[in-house]
């Protein structure tokens, strides 16, 4: 596969998309872990939902 005289523009486009998509995936995973950790800490400190069910268990 040859990309011709404008290879740098093509490569930069694909790298930019890969970088932003990777950032979105990392953001979603990191946020999930962060919220679960905060809920675990709150439950460990004695916070209970009105329903009485665990806030951490999302299954």
């Amino acid at each position, binding site marked *: 596969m040859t990309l011709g005289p404008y290879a740098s*523009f093509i490569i930069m*486009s694909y790298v930019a998309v890969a970088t932003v998509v990777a950032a979105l995936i990392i953001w979603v995973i990191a946020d999930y872990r962060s*919220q679960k950790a905060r809920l675990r800490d709150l439950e460990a400190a004695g916070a209970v939902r009105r329903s009485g069910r665990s806030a951490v268990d999302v299954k």
Partner: protein
Amino acid sequence: MRETGLESALPALAPATISGAMTLIDLANPSRFLSLAGRILPWLAALTVLVLAVGLYQSATAPDDYQQGATVKIMFIHVPNAWLSMFVWGVMSVAALGTLVWRHPLADVAAKTAAPIGAAFTFLALLTGSLWGRPMWGTYWEWDARLTSVLILFLMYLGLMALWRAVEDPSRAARAAAVLTLVGAINIPIIKFSVDWWNTLHQPASVIRMGGSTLDRAFLIPLLVMAIGFTLLFLTLHIAAMRNEILRRRVRTLQMLQASKSA
């Protein structure tokens, strides 16, 4: 089926319609949504990876265009991002109606979490379009109707994200954001038809148009596969982000309960 009173209230509706309404009502329960999200996310993520892998392979092996050469490969990522920039605003507009009209408990969660993802896709559409424009048009940017209206869309996404951050109470922020989203939806047909209404440097529609696509199958198939892949990517990210937002609201509720106990 559980007896909820809905069946007797809507006797004229077909069973399938009632079943569809029941599914929506079931999904309105955040706990049920979390359970469903946990089950479907791994499968959706796997399907996204598979479709994007096929799309990337087809994009890499697609022939060069007789005018653009290999630069046509930018189109395979630019167009799906451009489509999604408008599609995500459409999703947010439906969610805004859900907030204002039906008061669906998950509508504002859906709208809030779609905004940063939509902003990312819009940014990529602008960036890849600019990187395609330099070798093909001789300029990175031109203040024509299509480019300017997409830039306005990007700024509107940022404005919505700022609004969500500025108002602490999610239900109050939801109503203001919903109104702003519906007002901003006016920009979507302007973006779509800008190339027909005004004399623009951006080329007119070549895929979704009256009379069928003008693209050769060698380019159309990779483009459609990539578009499906990016749409699946959006769905995966959106469901995951909605799950995070529900957990964030649980954190907020527990913190408030704890604060009221200790007061």
